[in-house]
């Protein structure tokens, strides 16, 4: 067995509806080793969340899957329901974007966390409750609040509860799907700091999904930039952000206003994000790209190694 914790191999997802077929994810490859944190960044509809859900085999029934996702060498798609149940929450845990809908409104936060523990481990109710209190304490919520309901917490506090619940069984991989998008920036800073600390403490692997490049820069070692269901650039955060090569990554970085330095006119990326029902045959970014040629129209460029820390899928850069 390899030391890879999660391997996503040539993975594609297609959703079929009555009217159309939607190509949400196309030939994606990602590997996560233990203790590693990887950021998945892209705009709306890039397929980020679909990958997260697929990792837990939680895709809806109209999704058809090609390729494979291996967790510790076992395909998540060939697991039985029982195996999936033991994996979800205990080995791979997820933090959701909206902490209010992710929590059950009719149970106290303490009960909800204890429930996670009881689902996976053979412990008494009392013991589970004790551990829930410890977990809440760890994420910075006073123990006395464990009997309160989610609606009594603020957004930031709810997300802390979500984090506590996801860490309840010491998962090996944590998937965070836009965990701070619904939060204010000072609260976001608190949550990111907390995640950073916990990740270092427990050396959990992290798959961070976000559209905010700044969050990736703060929290991750590696970054994969997604566009229209494909990964177009991949590498260490330092390498990709300081030396972006793909026209889309460059465009994205130039489109963001900066907090420091000179205020230059923003460079908008022309055109619209590719329609996943009607993707271009060749490079998915080709219709919006300024550097493309005929080859880009016909063939999808494959990932090319620039150096050990940097991979890119583009014909124009070589």
């Amino acid at each position, binding site marked *: 067995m390899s030391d890879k914790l999660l391997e996503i191999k040539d993975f594609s997802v297609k959703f079929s509806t009555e009217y159309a077929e939607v190509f949400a994810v196309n030939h994606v490859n990602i590997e996560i080793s233990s203790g590693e944190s990887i950021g998945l960044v892209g705009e709306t509809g890039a397929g980020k969340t679909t990958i997260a859900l697929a990792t837990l085999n939680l895709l809806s029934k109209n999704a058809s899957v090609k390729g494979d996702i291996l967790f510790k060498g076992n395909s998540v798609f060939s697991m039985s329901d029982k195996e999936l149940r033991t994996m979800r929450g205990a080995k791979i845990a997820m933090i959701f974007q909206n902490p209010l809908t992710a929590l059950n409104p009719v149970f106290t936060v303490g009960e909800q966390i204890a429930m996670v523990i009881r689902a996976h481990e053979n412990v008494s109710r009392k013991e589970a409750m004790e551990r829930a209190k410890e977990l809440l304490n760890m994420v910075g919520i006073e123990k006395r609040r464990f009997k309160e309901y989610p609606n009594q917490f603020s957004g930031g506090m709810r997300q802390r509860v979500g984090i506590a619940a996801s860490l309840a069984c010491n998962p090996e991989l944590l998937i965070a799907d836009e965990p701070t998008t619904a939060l*204010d920036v000072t609260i976001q*800073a608190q949550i990111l700091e907390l995640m950073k600390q916990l990740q270092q403490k427990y050396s959990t692997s992290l798959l961070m999904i976000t559209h905010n490049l*700044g969050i990736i820069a703060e929290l991750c070692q590696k970054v994969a930039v997604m566009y229209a269901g494909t990964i177009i650039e991949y590498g260490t955060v*330092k390498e990709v952000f300081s030396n972006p090569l793909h026209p889309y990554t460059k465009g994205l970085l130039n489109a963001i206003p900066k907090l420091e330095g000179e205020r230059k006119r923003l460079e908008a990326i022309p055109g619209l994000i590719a329609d996943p029902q009607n993707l271009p045959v060749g490079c998915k970014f080709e219709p919006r790209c300024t550097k493309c040629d005929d080859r880009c129209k016909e063939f999808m460029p494959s990932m090319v190694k620039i150096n050990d820390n940097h991979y890119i899928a583009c014909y124009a850069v070589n």
Partner: protein
Amino acid sequence: MIDKKNVLLQAKHLKKYFKLSRKSYLYAVDDISFEIESGKTLGLVGESGCGKSTIGNVVMRLIPQTDGELLYKGKDIFKVDKNESFELRKKMQIIFQDPYSSLNPRKTILQILSEAFVIQKVCSRNEIKKNVLELCDIVQIPHNLLNHYPHELDGGMRQVVGIARALSLNPDFIVCDEPVSSLDVSVQARIINLLMDIQKKRKISYLFISHDLSVVRHISHRVAVMYLGKMVEIADTDDIFRNTMHPYSIALLSAVPTIEKFGENKTRILLQGDVPSPINPEHGCRFVKRCWMTGPKCHTSEEPPFKEVESGHYVACFYAEKARMLMNEYTKNRGKINND
């Protein structure tokens, strides 16, 4: 610095309290004053619930003010009669945050953009279409979209329609209430460029409300920071970002994750807890409970005065100088990190 001769809009001690019950009030906007020069942008930043949007709504007279004055070209627009008020609406417009709910789903884009001309009767029926087409050229809406309905457009294009609608009557002043926060970055850049180009061409003033500090820095000439219904700091953009003085502004600025610095060494001021409730807040400084550098004066019921610390730079903090000193140290440290 504000050029007093060039002021288009001036708010004086603006207040908006929402009555919740006999004894409790929500102090959404509490004694706010600011000036906007013509052709310039005032950025308004703060976290959710600090009263940014309420200011926008009060300025647009969408909700009545509790107290205060709002001078447009020297005239208090809270006191004008109905006819004048109707005329003034041509001059002041608003772009809303959510381009999905701010366009009538049962009207085509042409109808939406014609509405202002029809209501204000600025031109004859025949000219309306011509004016709408001109409008579309300015903001680059393809003419073939005019017969479509809002749901057929993507978020960015809808926001462009929202901008076109605000521009239709040639206003002097537009409130932009989080116009780009629901958009992806590549679309966001296009909208920001569009707003800035229009400002240059038509000398329109903006009140730009946003929670995104980098967007505000990019578009604004002057920036005001709000916390819990109060303005805590206002200064010219470069000044406020380089020479931040209020402890809250400093913390807010340090909390933004950026791609310019690669994590690890970045000093960050983490605020404890959440923004407290604006319902019946205690007297004195509203930020004191989360502040990272309080002094003896802070815990009294005395409210820190909003005073001019440097020319054009107003801060509501007893210890602004000390906060700035700490901030400078912090910037120096960051500078060191850069050199390494």
